[in-house]
């Protein structure tokens, strides 16, 4: 009896060691196998919060319809409102709906970025410019005749129909539907030739792709943003010979002021 128990304990211990072997191998700094032959050891690290929620129930469908209604309603609000502040607020609602739809597409990082960049930064910029302008619109919609309206309406209906019929026929290449949890993607890990499974659309997955294959595009985008900032300042800077700014103190040197006056004189009428 005691011998049997000993054998059972040994078997259980061996099983536990076998089960925890990957983590033990990761804890080992330099596996002997990796030093001798540089073949790929197939060690898989699971992410600590693996996304396993499969949500194909009615509640998720109702949530989708709600957020889709918020998105389209906000967009219609933008296009139809006469008041600029109301249009901006509709835009914020539209962006929040889009962010929730991104979350339903399991793009969690892009969802948060959408909320921060669009609903935060860009909308603040728009509100700022609306406050600078501070002028109600006389006639919001371009005047067209009845024939023009009919042609435009028919064109929009045709475009909507073609788009919807084309997109509804899109066959997914895998039988999963979009609300089911996507499989975690495997990334090549650290120097130990491990692979790591991270959640679909997480910061790690997107960052691996952005700083791996997309590194050049990332650098190009940073240069583009620099150019855009410099260009925005150069375009929106007030000309100092404008009569609206006559009361402002001038603290620029004389030669720069002369250059500005020359630029204003040559380019001010364009």
């Amino acid at each position, binding site marked *: 009896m005691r011998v049997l128990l000993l054998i059972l304990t040994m078997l259980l211990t061996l099983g536990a060691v076998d089960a925890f072997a990957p983590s033990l191998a990761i804890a080992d700094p330099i596996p002997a196998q990796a030093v001798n032959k540089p073949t790929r050891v197939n060690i898989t690290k699971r992410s600590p919060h693996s996304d396993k929620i499969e949500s194909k129930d009615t509640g998720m469908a109702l949530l989708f319809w709600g957020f889709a209604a918020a998105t389209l309603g906000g967009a219609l609000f*933008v296009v139809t409102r006469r008041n600029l502040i109301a249009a901006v607020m509709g835009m914020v609602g539209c962006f929040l709906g889009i962010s929730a739809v991104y979350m339903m*597409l399991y793009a969690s990082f*892009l969802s948060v970025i959408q909320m921060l960049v669009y609903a935060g930064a860009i909308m603040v910029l*728009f509100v700022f410019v609306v406050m600078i302008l501070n*002028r109600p*619109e006389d006639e919001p919609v371009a005047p067209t005749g009845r024939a023009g309206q009919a042609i435009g309406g028919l064109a929009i209906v045709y475009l909507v129909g073609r788009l919807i019929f084309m997109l509804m026929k899109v066959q997914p290449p895998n039988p999963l539907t*979009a609300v089911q949890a996507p499989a975690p993607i495997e990334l090549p890990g650290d120097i130990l030739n491990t692979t790591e499974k991270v959640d679909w659309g997480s910061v790690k997955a997107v960052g691996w*792709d952005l700083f791996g294959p997309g590194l050049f595009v990332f650098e190009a985008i940073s240069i583009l943003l620099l150019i855009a900032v410099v260009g925005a300042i150069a375009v929106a800077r007030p000309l100092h010979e404008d009569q609206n700014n006559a009361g402002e103190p001038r603290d620029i040197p004389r030669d720069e002021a002369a250059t500005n006056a020359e630029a204003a004189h040559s380019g001010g009428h364009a």
Partner: protein
Amino acid sequence: MSDILFNVGYGHFLVLAALLFLIGTAGVLIRRNALIILMSVELMLNAANMTLLTFSRMWGDISGHTFALIVIAVAAAEAAVGLAIVVAVFRGRRNVDVDRLTTLRH
């Protein structure tokens, strides 16, 4: 019918993005205020982003997320430059009606 209502698939997201793009196009075409036109352009960029994310999810390729991130950066740059142009135009002629910006036509 209940299949369309309760079984949300890729087609739903694509149709939502298409409708968003259409609303943005209509805003660019029918409105005359330059600010509203800029906002409609942002709507169209967001619709393109949603399509990118849906196709990325559909094919299991994460590079669509990278592309969407780059589109967001380009949209931010476009908003900054566009709003600067709007402010410059407003400073010169006190309105931002795009139908009256006909100086370059003559």
